[in-house]
């Protein structure tokens, strides 16, 4: 697992210790992550990885799984 993915996994686990984020692929559609979680997560990612996720990137496809979120963060990180 790369660093970005591992950091995000830790942040997600902090939010919901009872969820297996490596398996779950419906985080938004199953309402596991709510709007509070999403903005907390974005602030944490900004703090830990120095990557800013803008509001237009907050769509289910980007937040439904650990993989999709890690992919988004990696893309944004590469853009910088």
């Amino acid at each position, binding site marked *: 697992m790369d660093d970005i993915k591992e950091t995000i996994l830790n942040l997600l686990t902090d939010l919901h210790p009872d969820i297996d984020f490596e398996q779950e692929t419906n985080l938004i559609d199953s309402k596991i992550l709510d*709007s509070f979680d999403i*903005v907390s997560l974005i*602030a*944490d990612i*900004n703090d830990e990885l120095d990557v800013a996720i803008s*509001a*237009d990137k*907050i769509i289910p496809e980007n937040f439904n799984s650990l993989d999709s979120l890690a992919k988004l963060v990696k893309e944004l990180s590469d853009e910088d």
Partner: protein
Amino acid sequence: MLFTSYNFIAFLSAVIILYWLIPRKARWVLLLVADMVFYYFSKTTALPVNLIYLVSTIVSTYIFTNLITRNANKEKAYLKANKESLDKETKKKYKEQQKAVRRRLLIGSIVVNIGMLAVVKYTNFTISNINSIMGVLGSAHRLTFVDIAVPMGISYYIFQTVGYSIDCYRGKTEAQKNIFKLALFASFFPQLVQGPISRYDDLAPALFESKEFDFKYISYGLQRILWGFFKKLVIADRLLTAVTTIIKDTETYNGLFVVLGMLFYAIELYCDFTGGIDITIGAAEALGIPLKENFIRPYFSKTLKEFWNRWHITMGTWFTDYIFYPLSVSKFMLNLNRSSRKHLGDKIGKRVPVYTATIIVWFATGIWHGASWNFIVWGLGNCLVLLISQELEPFYRFFHSKTKVNGTRIWDAVRIIRTMLIVSSLRLFDCYRDVPLTFKMFGSIFTDKAVINKETLMGLGLEPTDYIVVLIGVIIVFVVSLIGRSGSVRDKISTIPYWGKFAIWFGLFLIVLIFGQYGIGYAASQFIYNQF
């Protein structure tokens, strides 16, 4: 033109018949003409004034969004043409410059439209507050209130067009090049007066590309409208008298009557608002145009958070997508996050930006419902309960891990009743429209001993038959909601034999006809959410 008026039924029937008779390409034009006719006959203020606001919204949104899309296309073309020659840094700088241009255009669009809404809805509220402050400071000078009528549907069409402008800015959609099509999106008549607040991507394709005729559209649409009429005319309008009596006479109707008022208002508001939305969705459905659902059995919610995910959904998601998210992840909030974590520690510090954004959003939600302090306190009250629930999450988790109540029917029922009590208590701010009076009446529940008996119940303006009709009506709504948990009720009814279907729908039609609150000399009441 009220949805429950004969005029609306005649108007809608004519639109539906004409819509399916004329060529498909011309149908969107018919809808636009229908919008204008509906708007003309529904005018709440002088027509030119009403139209000025609507036209200003359409024209300004059209100009700004087209400039945004043109700039985005120009950026793409430039980057494509110079793909090889530009280095990464130059590309990034160019993109940032162009994005800043689009941001300025978006801000222009928002300032014009939200500014218009603010002037119309909040000028007198601002003046009233300034006058109060001057009074406190000992000044005898008072500002004069201005005579501004709130144009019909302004909150809804401005929210819809502002959402569309932001979607254009975010590149989610391209600006509509035909101003008349944009006008149709902004003013689609079924949803003009009380929502739901649609997104351009969802609604536009169905508006502009009409479908092949299918009788199911008409039958399902009419069934949904009939269901809306049932909730509005048989239940909501019947309870209106009792609710108004309880609210207006606070000296007589205190104590347990406040609780009764909360219960009646919960039923009235639900049947009024969801009934109106049923008529809206049904009218659009009869034209083959699907609209987003605005309610999913909200009174079955186990928490306030869940309630707000099921009640007035399109408004809630609008506030989340277009205010809460942009605000929470803005540079300012991210910086606030860093500095608050530094000074207050991780645990408390990380809450500061999220909670700040939440408070702002609920303040906005409150003031959107009405330009008065009772609505602001109502919004902030909801916010307070949500934030407390958020903080208590670990406690709930601990409690559920130590007990076996979670997931049991009895515990679910307790949670549903608790949520209902919270929602209804907060709604007292909406009922009494006065903050100190609301607290006083809420307190009276525990101190005053008003007696509820047959005589006092009759004093609320309802006959015994009215109570029976309301009770049976509520049971029907409850049963339908229960059935609806496992899928569309209309789909289920459509599978039963013909005589059964006929009995259900004709029976409902007769119920509305016989028990609906109308008749000679009776003016059906306005929908509650039309005022917002």
